[in-house]
């Protein structure tokens, strides 16, 4: 068990089998909601996580209030669009350049 989970005085940090933790967290959310406290899991599903990170939070306010992004995204997923845009632009300019440079007058 990691030291942070061991030392946590309020047992807010929990460590264990992730499926079991997820079940426990879901039950806790239900309990809290029954008491009228808005709560949800952050990082446990696709909407609030970038794949299986196996770490998640039970939050009672919007993610921004905890300095977490609304909906995290893996920055590297933007590469394909960027390379494509660069290739199209370079290709178009190179074709125009060929027309300009190789036109025999």
């Amino acid at each position, binding site marked *: 068990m990691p030291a942070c989970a061991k030392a946590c005085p309020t047992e807010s940090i929990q460590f264990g089998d992730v499926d079991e933790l997820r079940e426990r967290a879901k039950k806790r959310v239900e309990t809290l909601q029954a008491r009228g*406290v*808005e709560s*949800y899991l952050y990082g446990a599903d696709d909407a609030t996580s970038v794949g299986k990170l196996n770490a998640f939070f039970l939050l*009672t*306010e*919007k*993610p*921004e*209030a*905890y*300095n*977490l*992004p*609304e*909906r*995290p*995204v893996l*920055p*590297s*997923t*933007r*590469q394909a*669009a*960027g*390379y*494509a*845009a*660069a*290739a*199209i*632009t*370079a*290709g*178009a*300019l*190179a074709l*125009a*350049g*060929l027309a*300009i*440079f*190789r*036109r*025999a*007058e």
Partner: protein
Amino acid sequence: MNPPSPDASGRGASDGFGDLPAHVPATYYERPLLKKPHWEGEVIVYLFLGGIMGGSGILALLCDDHPDHDEDLARIVRYSAFVLAPASPGVLLLHLGRPERFLHMLRIFKWRSVMSMGVWGLIAFSVPATLGAGAQAARDGILWSWLDALVPRRVTDVVLGFLGAFIVGYTGVLLSATAIPLWAIGKRHIPAFCVCSGLAGACALNAAILAIGGGNERSLRKLERLEMLASAAELALLEAFRRHAGSTGDPMFTGKRGNKLRTVTQALGIVAPALLTLLPFGGRAKTLLASALTLAGGYVLRETLIEAGKASADDPRAASRQPE
């Protein structure tokens, strides 16, 4: 639930997670969500030189031996690609603080890392750049003449063109593959206008050198025409990016930085050289002035992009809305 201390930045809460009370703050005490890059002058100079280097690669492809080709221009383009090939990554090495750290990049080849691809792209570029310049030097009588016969200049020029296109564009991809809001939201626009600006800069630099050497007037006209085309595309893409980015683009397009971008890059760096080019008089001095303005505009574009990106990283609201 313990209500958090009232926060002036409080935003209506009915947008996402149910009926959270209205006092829920929209940020964590206005603290930045991201750590911003500490990039300073060297990185800006690298992006600027790298753009010209890549653009010179594309020009090498265009100036390759063809019926209407101009040996003077081809010589200048090959030499400038050769000089920039070590110069631009050299600036990046200085930025590392301990330049030998660069060697660690050579242990890695990773498709998913733009930086790794960039390193290998820069190294690959230096091969045809060196071979092409070597063959050119042989033709010019500087090196042994058998070198010219040995190097397939056709092949090196085409390879230089493709690698140049990669280098001129990858810097934009490098920026947008981060969490920095301004760069992330420009995942298509930034690489595209980096390509335009890099090619325009390469045209400007090579035209200036050609003009100093008293080169062929027709080659100058060709360079000017391509530069105008690339600059016009850059202007259109910058405007498209401004509209696309919305409030995330404010650090780049408003305030002091926005004014600098509009005056130096857009007015003096794109519109003014185009007007100068269209003037029926002026000769060499006009070409030199237009080139200097284009290059200055290209530098300010990189500088604005970097500085505005850093500023946007400080805005927790923008950082929280991570674009796809």
